[in-house]
């Protein structure tokens, strides 16, 4: 079975987000970028499926600027067999990504598509669901366990009330939650080998789609700075402040 894994290049989770002085967007100049952590979990799950003999080929896909090939190389180092880069310098939104992936699903005919449930840059949590809608394939979102048996996949989902297990007929779409697995580190020899693994570059036009944004970004504001606290001398003072200053009582 072929597994298609989508990965996204995002600002590294360790980096403090800064807004550009003109508030036009988040400042990405000289900022460390990395693979979205949920996508790392998706890659790890695919690699585990291959190690179990369930998957036979792993294809990693990304949609984004040239630099996003770095993240594809990471996926290849972690165990993907080949990669497809849909190159665009446009700001790609969930729908654009889903449309590109839908075309690739058509071309590649994977048995399973694994995506992160959301990307930590815009936190949309949409691409997997949109892809399911566009392709008409069944979806199992927020997976904390994935079990493939024959032509079915059982997906345990983390829902508000607890865990829900659904069974989907393959081919299917799965999006990963945090607790699905703990991703491995790439090994140094595998990073070297990854440089030689095949990586196809396509344009959105090659796929016959446009990934242009439908949402206009008007302004980005950092959260208001936290005000320093004060130490109160007595309970009476606290009550007084809550009542008259904070006006919450």
């Amino acid at each position, binding site marked *: 079975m072929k597994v298609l894994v989508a990965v996204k290049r995002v600002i*590294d989770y360790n980096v*403090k987000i800064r807004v550009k002085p003109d508030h036009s967007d988040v400042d990405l*100049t000289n900022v460390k970028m990395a693979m979205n952590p949920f996508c790392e979990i998706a890659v790890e799950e695919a690699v585990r499926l291959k190690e179990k003999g369930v998957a036979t080929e792993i294809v990693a896909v990304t949609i984004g600027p040239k630099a996003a090939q770095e993240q594809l190389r990471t996926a290849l180092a972690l165990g993907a067999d080949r990669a497809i880069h849909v190159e665009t310098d446009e700001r790609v939104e969930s729908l654009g990504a889903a449309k590109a992936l839908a075309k690739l699903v058509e071309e590649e005919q994977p048995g399973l598509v694994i995506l992160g449930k959301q990307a930590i840059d815009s936190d949309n949590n949409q691409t997997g669901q949109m892809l399911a809608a566009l392709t008409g394939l069944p979806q199992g979102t927020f997976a904390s366990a994935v079990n493939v048996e024959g032509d079915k996949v059982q997906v345990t989902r983390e829902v508000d009330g607890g865990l829900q297990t659904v069974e989907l007929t393959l081919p299917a779409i799965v999006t990963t939650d945090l607790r699905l697995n703990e991703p491995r580190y790439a*090994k*140094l020899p595998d990073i070297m080998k990854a440089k030689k693994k095949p990586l196809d570059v396509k344009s959105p036009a090659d796929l016959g789609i446009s990934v242009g944004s439908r949402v206009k970004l008007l302004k980005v504001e950092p959260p208001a700075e936290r005000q320093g606290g004060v130490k109160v001398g007595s309970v009476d003072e606290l009550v007084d402040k809550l009542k008259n200053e904070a006006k919450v009582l």
Partner: protein
Amino acid sequence: MTEQVERDSIEFDVVIVGAGPSGLAAACRLMQQANAAEQELTVCVVEKGSEVGAHILSGAVFEPRALAELFPDWEERGAPLTTPATRDEVYLLKDAEKALTLPNALVPKSMHNTGGDMPRYVISAGNLCRWLAEQAEGLGVEIFPGFAAQEAIVEEGVVKGLLIGDMGVGADGEPKDSYMPGMELRARYTLFAEGARGHIGKRLIEAYDLAEGKDPQHYGIGLKELWDIPAEQHEPGLVLHGSGWPLDKNTHGGWFLYHADNQQVVVGLIMDLSYQNPWLSPFDEFQRMKHHPVLAKHLEGGKRVAYGARAIVKGGLNCLPKMTFPGGLLIGCDAGTLNFAKIKGLHTAMKSGLVAAEAVFEAIAGGDEGGQELTAFTEKWEASWAYAELKESASFGPAIHKYGTLGGGAYNFVNQLLGGKLPNVHDTTPDHAALKPAAEFEKIDYPKPDGKLSFDKLSSVFLSNTNHEEDQPCHLRLADPELPIRDNLPEYAEPASRYCPAGVYEVVEDDDGKPRFQINFQNCVHCKTCDIKDPAQNITWVAPEGGGGPNYPNM
């Protein structure tokens, strides 16, 4: 545990530890020579930072001499040297309000950044390294960020390569699910370019007695911030240096403030680690320094965007260890090639890398199987302009230690007029031994940060984007865990909590009211100050899991 593990091993011709200016310059030069000679050569660079540049912190005003030797066409290649230094200002701060401007004629000529035969540039050393890494990869070098060299492989007295640290080891020392044993990277020659007080370099200097006959090495701690400032205050290329207040007459150091491009200013303080008063806090000195009108007028109305700190090695030629040993070389600040008289180290570090690459390639091209001591390096190095620079300024730092900022400055001024003919001055007290008991001084009451020009430590560390996987063994090793509370606390009021610029060390009260020494290693910005300044030399800095540490942007 490490002994029973089966380790993968890869062989290269040359392995380089550290993707900084010297390591990357060496890597580029090696491949340039190999490509020119159409000879196959495998060169690998390992870097403990999560990406190249993540752990690089420097002023910096850059003299492109070594860069131009490496890439004469650096401009066409898009090297990030965009802001030529246009104007020098040098100040002596008298107190919190007053300052003297020093006329150029009275400033040692090594500190002039404008005029002369070569333009200097206000740069980000991190971005220079990112660019050098691209050039190196283009030439065929393998660069591996996120892999921390843990120790040198030494067999029968010969350095044979290095061992990468294990990944995925829990705080209890036991392997986790993600455990991955570190690999062996074996090489004919291994170049150590870890920067100041490299943790492997330190052990090699001891093991091979490389510092024999030299003065003890001297260090400073450099703290730096990056500011976005209002357009009307911005003068790209303006270079300010100063000394005096807030440091007292027994504490040496100086500050810098450079106007870079993109409406940004960098400001920093370098404080010699030979200071005596254990109550001193370099971080707090730096914070209050920014309130001086001379500095504040550049920063007011601006916003601080990045913070970091790093020890610098500044002993100069008197302290420069032997740089060769069987199978490898120590280059750049790992050895101590910084020219303190110029307050610059990037150009000499790069030059040491170039010379190393030439010596190594010559040996390998001549059929050398590796493991030799490259004495040819020493000859080439001592014939280089970088060595000549260090020779001329050998007394610069020691004179300041010995005669104070003014007296030492005068010595240096006269000595440079005479072309370095005054008798050499030495400082033979190691920095850690310079610390005096806390009882001899009054506790320093630092002003509270105002949140506009000055800030507290934790909000500063936050801006260094520092992170370490929490579930891993602490990488700050105490030889004697009881010593900080038993000896350092009563004698020196445990200075670690003050010299550490990242809030790693704290003395906290236990539930039973007893003091306890706490190490918040996750905050560590890898500056190495603790390894240098602990009066008992009880703290050893070792590399944490690869990828941990600060994530500096353009520092």
